[in-house]
């Protein structure tokens, strides 16, 4: 029964997260990613919820005699702990990226053809220490060449 509740929760979270990820809006994408992490963490957590028990902390180490049946499974918890931290790193980085993109373009713009939320044409927006971005020009030129080839 608990498993069913968990599965239902995971299902709804995943569906909503996917829906958000599929939107063009970068903010929704970041939030979708956060939601997806919750779903996956709960999926892993669901492996150990059927059997109740104490938190896996051995209070009295001296008298511990190998009786582990009273504790819940520690392994999913260890996995999820890592997952939470790493996904936070990713979300934080994405947020920084969004901020950066915004500072470059001032407005989030998007054309119909390129609806990648991180797609922008940096070369049109860049000036400043020019030699730092020489390579970007090459990238843009290459893209233009490829595009013209593609359309041919």
């Amino acid at each position, binding site marked *: *029964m*608990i*498993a069913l*509740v*968990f*599965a*239902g929760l*995971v*299902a*709804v979270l*995943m*569906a*909503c997260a*996917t*829906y958000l*990820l*599929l939107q*063009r809006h970068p*903010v*929704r994408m970041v*939030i979708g990613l*956060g*939601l997806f992490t*919750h779903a996956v963490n709960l999926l892993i957590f*669901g*492996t*150990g*919820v*059927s*059997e*109740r028990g104490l*938190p*896996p*902390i051995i209070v009295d180490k001296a008298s511990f005699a190998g009786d582990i049946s009273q504790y819940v*499974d*520690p*392994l999913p*918890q*260890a996995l999820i702990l890592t997952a939470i*931290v*790493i996904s*936070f790193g990713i979300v*934080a*980085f994405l*947020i*920084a990226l*969004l*901020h950066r993109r*915004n500072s470059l373009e*001032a*407005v*989030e713009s998007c054309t119909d053809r*390129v*609806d*990648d939320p991180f797609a922008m044409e940096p*070369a049109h927006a860049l*000036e*400043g220490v020019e030699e730092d971005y020489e390579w970007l*020009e090459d990238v843009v030129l290459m893209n233009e060449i490829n595009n013209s080839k*593609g359309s041919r």
Partner: protein
Amino acid sequence: MLTPFLVLLALTGPALWLLRVHRWQHAGWLAAVTPAVVTGWLLAQLGPAAQGSFVTEQRVWSEAFGLALDLRLDGLGLFFGLIVAGMGTAIAVYAGYYFEKSARLGYFYALLFLFMTSMLGLVSADNLLALFVFWEGTSITSYLLISFKLTDKNALEGARRALVVTGMGALAMLGSFVLLGQMAGTYSISGLLALPAATLTQHALFTPMLVLVLLGAFTKSAQFPFHFWLPGAMAAPTPASAYLHSATMVKAGVYLLARLHPAFAESPLWFWALLVVGGLTMLVGAVIALRHYDLKAILAYATVSQLGVLVMLLAFNTKVAVTAAVVGILAHALYKGPLFMVAGIVDHATGTRDIRKLAGLARSLPLVGAAAILAGISMAGIIPTFGFVAKELLLENFFALIEAGHSQLGWAGLVAVVITGALFVAYSLILLWEAFLRRNSPLKQATVHHAPSTAFVLPVLALTVVGALIPFFFSSIEGALFGSAGSAILGAALEPHLALWHGWTPIFLTSLLAIGLGAVIFTQRERIRKLFTKAPEFKGQAVFDGAVDALYSLARWSTRTVQGSSFPTQIGVPLMAAAGFVGYALSRDFIADLRVDWDAIPTFYEVVLPLLAVVAALAIARAQSRLSAIISLGLVGSVVMLIYVFFSAPDLALTQFLVEVLTLVLLVLVFYRIPYHAYPKQPKHRSFKYLLISCAVGVWGFGMALLAAGKPLAQTISSYFSLNATAAHGGNIVNVILVDFRGFDTLGEISVMVVAALGGYALLRSSRMRPLAPKKKRKERRNA
């Protein structure tokens, strides 16, 4: 001695490049030293080889895979090796003058000598896989030589075509070699040929194997319908065309057929495939040659035709046919190579190869004219040249066929050969007359503005003179040169008796008939050319290009579909793949594991809290403002945290709480600074599609969660961690797992965090860009 020579050859080219030979006046002569030495050594092997003692060498590479560099120079290998090294000597000298202090001479030599090494290795390899490696070596060097002129689009496309066609053939051939190795139990060629022929021909896999072998040989030797790559390869510098694309590399296919001839010649498939394809190629090449005006194009199609002749001859398992093939190979190398070189000199001297702009070159370039005429009458097959002997043997083959009772086939072949012979005569005469002898050209005549030095013409003359002299010394060389090569092809002793003059035989009369017909065609050439301009042309090249383009479009289409330019498609495809395929596998194999444990009753809060999370998640999906979405996300996070609390995971709850707060702060901070920008609404059908994908992923997640909560599919190691936690001096088992048992994983996790932190810091801190530069300025700079 052979391996050192191969290494020496391979090193010579790069060494010349490093020495920057283009600065030297007569660099060609220096370059010619190595191939000349190799030629001398090969000549010295002729005597022993005729006695049946061959040079063999073995360098084992990987015994387990049967990979060894087995080299064995038998009569056939020696024969081809002599052509490779001998022609190579002449070409090396010639190229030195052709490139005339161009800085790329060294590069050319590097490629040329690498090719020479590959080709020599190819003809001396006694291991199928070694042969394949050398074979590919010739393909790659050929590709680089064709695309030598990097600015020329035709050259690049021609090179690509040649590489793709021969490369596909080589792949087929590799497959056939593997099959052959499986069938024979050995990759050694001599071992293969020593087997009784029936072991192979009676094998169940014989037919597919043979088809693959033939594909390899036919693509390499430019047989119809793969012949189109050879004329395209003429964009290569002329020394390369003369060497690779007439004398040596294109004969690699012929060599392969000759090499395997003893084992396969009994098979009817072999006979008919070679006969039909070779015969067609012979006719097609000869006919198309007439429609071209470019010297090199004419010669290229003539080469195609000649290759067809050789392939056709190898269909037969008779002494005459084999002799004709061997003589044909050498005769062709000795007239077609020089003719190509002449074309190069003409191009060099006048700046054009268009025959309509040329006239009277025999007067302005007498030495070149002499060489051209000598080689040209050999190509036409006019007595008393080497080419004449080759054609006589070719005719003799079909007369022998008629005598042997296959009169229909014999007559058909005879007619085809006479027509081809007549066309050979015709375009030889056209070449000689129009370029060298006539007084006026139809188009504005090109003048000789850059006369070649005598040394430039010398290698051409040397080759033609050798070709012209050979027929007069048949009695002294026929056994050593043609006899031992022919024996290797036939698989039985062959003692050819060649002569220039056989008397007024029917063969000679037929030969005269061909020459007469050729003369008629020559006189009617303008009319034929006019006809050609109206006739449709078979464009193998267009078909090939179409196929390549179609492949590219397919790749583009599949990339767009699977990967896409937009993020939704990029993420949608893998998610659907997960939901679809994994879902299918789950429902098929694990359906019994998707059990619900009805006994574990949740408490009231454990039902209400998930419900809250569900509502919050749906609210995010429908949220109109960013702030409400962020708040709802926080709500979901809090519920998850509480779930961790209820199910005895205090560490998780703590971490989740901290992370949740941090995320919330970050999101609010950043989005507060980003002005809101409304996105255009998705079209209805796309929204619907995304909704479907989302639902599929949700269902998949449901299944996965149920599966995860069910019975463990494999043994768990949790108890090990729990039991040994105290041994690691810890009470909190989760913490012990993280920092002790799986410490390196945590180190990895920390590294990820460090990278993310550094990346984020760099993104936020580097403010050396100002937004929205004027576009105009950039354009100016790009144009400048």
